[in-house]
């Protein structure tokens, strides 16, 4: 009885007691529902590192928004989205029209973007602002920020549903998609736009350094559990949800910063999945050594 109460208290207590924890919970749920499916496509398109680069690319936009309007949600959001899209489209154009390839082109753009952002924040901001930008503020999400996160979740899920087929076919067989449909570049740029808005959402909650964590890590973990696109999205979303809520509680009880705890948790889930999941290292090993192969 006593234990039960304590458990209730530890798991639910913070959310019952504190409004900011409820806000943070809602923010984490929105982010997980949206970022994890985007992360699955990021992985399938072999763009996980590109996601990380893009996360840094949104910094100067957010910083310029901050420079002009202070710590304003709208200004930093618009700035981040504009900077992210500019880098995505700019590096895509350079890759298609010059002898520079996509990876180098993106690296060039995001490095320019990142250094500009760090410069602006360091010259004009203070260290508290810098911490906010780098590590987010999931425990300080207000109503407007939550509305933004849920709006982004709605747009993301609707768009993913609409462009799912061209997006999948563009990963599976891009040449074939070009043969039968002109939707390839629409799907590509549509997906980049989703990536950018989700990074901006992640940036508000987790900060630029770790926004991409809630995309890449659940998707990579899910790969060890299931083998089809739909189940990958479901498992990645479930892992992201559970881990971010758990991370929130751990960070509350231990009084540790939230975003590194959440991303570390996701990292732990990834390592455990790699080891113990059905398609993970240990089971594969066991299967190979412990079983005789079939007759045919």
């Amino acid at each position, binding site marked *: 009885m006593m234990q039960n109460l304590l458990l209730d208290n530890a798991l639910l207590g913070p959310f019952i007691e504190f409004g900011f924890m409820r806000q943070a919970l809602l923010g984490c749920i929105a982010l997980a529902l949206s970022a994890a499916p985007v992360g699955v496509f990021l992985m*399938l398109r072999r763009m996980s590192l590109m996601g990380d680069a893009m996360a840094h690319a949104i910094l100067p936009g957010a910083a310029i928004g901050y420079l002009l309007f202070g710590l304003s949600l709208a200004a930093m959001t618009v700035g981040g989205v504009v900077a992210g899209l500019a880098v995505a489209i700019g590096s895509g154009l350079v890759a298609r029209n010059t002898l520079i390839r996509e990876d180098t082109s993106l690296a060039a753009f995001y490095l320019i973007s990142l250094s500009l952002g760090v410069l602006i924040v360091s010259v004009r901001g203070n260290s508290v602002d810098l911490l906010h930008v780098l590590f987010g503020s999931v425990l300080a999400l207000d109503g407007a920020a939550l509305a933004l996160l849920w709006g982004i979740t709605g747009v993301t899920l609707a768009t993913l549903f*609409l*462009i799912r*087929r*061209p997006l*999948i*076919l563009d*990963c*599976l*067989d*891009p*040449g*074939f998609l*070009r*043969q*039968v*449909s002109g*939707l390839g570049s629409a799907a590509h740029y549509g997906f980049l736009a989703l990536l950018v808005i989700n990074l901006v959402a992640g940036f508000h909650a987790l900060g630029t350094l770790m926004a991409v964590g809630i995309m890449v890590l659940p998707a990579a973990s899910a*790969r060890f559990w299931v*083998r*089809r*696109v739909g189940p*990958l999205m479901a498992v990645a979303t479930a892992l992201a949800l559970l881990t971010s809520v758990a991370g929130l509680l751990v960070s509350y009880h231990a009084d540790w910063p939230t975003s590194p705890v959440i991303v570390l948790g996701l990292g732990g889930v990834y390592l455990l999945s790699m080891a113990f999941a059905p398609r993970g290292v240990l089971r594969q090993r066991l299967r190979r050594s412990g079983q005789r192969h079939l007759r045919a």
Partner: protein
Amino acid sequence: MSTHASTPTITLRDLTLGYERHPAVHHLSLHIQPGALVAVVGPNGAGKSTLIKALAGVLAPLSGHIEGLQREHIAWLPQHSDLDASFPIDVRGMVATGLWRQVGALGRFTAAHRQRCDAALAAVGLSGFETRGLDTLSGGQLQRARFARLILQDAPVVLLDEPFAAVDQRTTADLLALLHGWQRAGKTVLAVLHDTAQVREHFPQTLLLAREPVAWGATGEVLTDANWARAQRLREPFDEQAGECGAVA
């Protein structure tokens, strides 16, 4: 399978194809009747793949015209496919992409569509593979799956660039039987090939290409020693200092 009253006559008029003004195929003119089964042969670098790309509509001619071909009437299997065989999808899902023109990005994938997929898989000898992962297929099985996708595309004109390059004899025989079936259904099939014995046995018409048309017509009349010798001589290298061709259309 549907018959193709709509299969077009393909006409090439003084077609010159190439890259950066350097022609890979010169002055090619010919008619291909609906329902033809045509082999395109020639030495390496003769412009065979270039011709297929132009017919598929992905390479614009330097000069001349291609008539009678619309992009939506073509199913094309390139020599180097972009297919990512490690993608997490089952065989039926991959083959179903052949129904793109009917189902599209948002259309409903019905039970009838699913049956057509399974029938196409059966036609290429992949029954029982419907829910297997694409990553479990061998090279020959992957090529069979690509042919199942071609079946579902059900296009009046089928272009194949070295379709049997990396598959064994049995797979080749099965896939050749499919080509004959397509021809009987009224489709026009063009295939780039290397095995002349196979061409003689299965392809009524042949184009021997060596940067320019060496011979075109009934296979027996095209594949002569004299024509092959001429094809070898015509294969000149890409010349940086090449002058402009006098016979510009």
